[in-house]
């Protein structure tokens, strides 16, 4: 496997998964408590009939707390969640956190760049960055596909659908600026 560069903080992957399960279950409980607290602050109009806007949020909060706790308890009893399988998932591979972080970084860059330099450039960066991160080579091919794909989408939106994505640096360019 090529995921040699994955920095795993814990030496023991089982222990790491266990901690993660606790944290995720715990966060669901916290979200539930947050929902319960917030539900208490929802303004109930005087006209509200028997059951107002608070009841359902309370119920959802309780469900979050209960199911989060249940997941934590299941973990304590050694019942881990089954990791999902998929055609492209290598069941034996260890989690490659670096790849995940890089992909998130490209998504963040994409959403920041849309308003700064326009959608086509932001899209090129997202596609090329993600494909490169996932192992596409050589770089010129990645870049070429990214440029063609984002320009085609831009033109399709501008001329075909009549919805215009922000052209940014291509502003005023025929076809690209809808």
């Amino acid at each position, binding site marked *: 496997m090529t995921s040699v560069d994955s920095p795993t903080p814990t030496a023991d992957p089982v222990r790491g998964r266990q901690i993660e399960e606790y944290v995720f279950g715990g966060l669901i409980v916290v979200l539930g408590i947050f929902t319960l607290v917030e539900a208490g602050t929802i303004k109930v109009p005087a006209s509200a009939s028997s059951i107002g806007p608070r009841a359902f949020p309370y119920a959802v909060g309780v469900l979050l707390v209960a199911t989060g706790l249940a997941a934590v308890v299941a973990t304590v009893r050694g019942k881990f969640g089954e990791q999902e399988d998929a055609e492209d998932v290598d069941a034996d591979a260890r989690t490659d956190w670096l790849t995940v972080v890089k992909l998130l970084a490209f998504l963040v860059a994409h959403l920041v760049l849309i308003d700064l330099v326009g959608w086509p450039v932001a899209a090129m960066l997202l596609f090329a960055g993600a494909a490169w991160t*996932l192992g596409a080579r050589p770089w010129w091919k990645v870049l070429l596909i990214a440029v063609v794909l984002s320009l085609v989408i831009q033109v399709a939106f501008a001329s075909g659908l009549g919805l215009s994505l922000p052209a940014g640096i291509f502003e005023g360019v025929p076809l690209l600026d809808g």
Partner: protein
Amino acid sequence: MDNVTLLLEGFATAMQPEYLLYALLGVTLGTAVGVLPGIGPAMTVALLLPLTYTLEPTAALIIFAGIYYGGMYGGSTTSILLNTPGESSSIVTALEGNKMAKAGRGAAALATAAIGSFVAGTIATVLLTVLAPTIADLAVTLGPPDYFALMVVAFVTVAALLGSSISRGLASLALGLFAGLIGTDTLSGQPRLTMGMSVLADGIDVVVVAVGFFAVGEALYVASRLRHGPVEVVPLGGKWMTREFWARSWKPWLRGTAIGFPIGTIPAGGADVSTFLSYAAEKKLAKRPEEFGKGAIEGVAGPEAANNAAAAGVLVPLLTLGLPTTATAAVIVAAFQSYGIQPGPQLFTNNPAMVWALIASLYIGNVMLLVLNLPLVKIWVKVLQIPRPYLYAGILLFAALGTYAVNFIVEDLVVLLVIGVVGFFMRRHGYPVAPAVVGMILGPMAEEQLRRTLTISQGNPVALVDSPFAMVAYGLLALVLITTLVLRLRRNKVDEVKVPA
């Protein structure tokens, strides 16, 4: 008017070149996303929801239904020819189909899957045509407590039956309900759980939630443990259809249909359960049980038929009660809603032209899918081989585009990112994502029915169960839950077979 007349009128509409083109577009897209790992019909329909702004309802729904049916066909090609199968509703197909392909009988496996899907899909669509109007007639009399009961049934079954852990399924449902709460309360006009953020005041768009959970979550998850190297496809070999092929296939097709359709109509976990049951049945009835695990054609024919019959079955509660029992069905409900149409019993009385054209298009779509998936299978093999870095980069790009195109605001992309990360961790820890999407879409509807019920009864909670229908619904829910436990034990037995294979 007579239902046959209405159906013929539906055909007259659906046969117009324009609608034929929409159906073709839908089934082609559906097959493509069925073939490709990482994207499914639910996410594709979600990404295409903005089409509802420009297309008229009939056209958009014909496309979405085509995607739904097409996804069922495409998945079998992947299971049979890809060395590394996945995707729940076709796992069973892979057990025998993949073995057949490796033994040089891939063509026969593909043929029995495609023709079986066609036979089952068509029979099940006939059943849908006959049953749906009748059920709709009965359902017209349902009141708010009955609808609330139905939604509770859908919540519990979807959450408890999908995935391997009931508590995690319910947690996923709760996360979806939470997402559905955010925004302005429709009845009182009060902001709820918006954390003072103006972007959240109108609530989170269904597109953002569905695309975040399905596309971004899935892409991140696969990327974290991506299988590197070229995509290995088993070369296609053997004869397509021989006399033995027909002799061994036709009974499993019919049995698969008989198992799949009823399971699809009840909220019992969708196509997944029906394929396991069909596989178990075929194995038990086989004349040569020793062939199972080594490439028995019956093990492909039955489950593939069951799979498609279940897909048609899912449309029965969707069209007649407005009740989605799978994630794709839930997103289709969102499509109806964006036209201001509430799927349910009134659909057949208020929008007969639309609903009958939709049903007619299902027949047409099935024929198109047979042609697309048999003679043209070589094209799909090419699609299947798209290098994975480009595939997942493309999924991320289209997810971001689909989300941005809803409102053209960058803030939606932030929400998408957050939901994507949640979806990623859910997959890592065995939380099924489908209940979250169903909860998000059905939650607000359930709350409305609950509050209506209690307003009418002036706060008396007995009103919730004070109707024969609601009582039956809650009773059946208990029954389904018990049956599931039994089915699960059976399924574990099938899994045991799988391990040594």
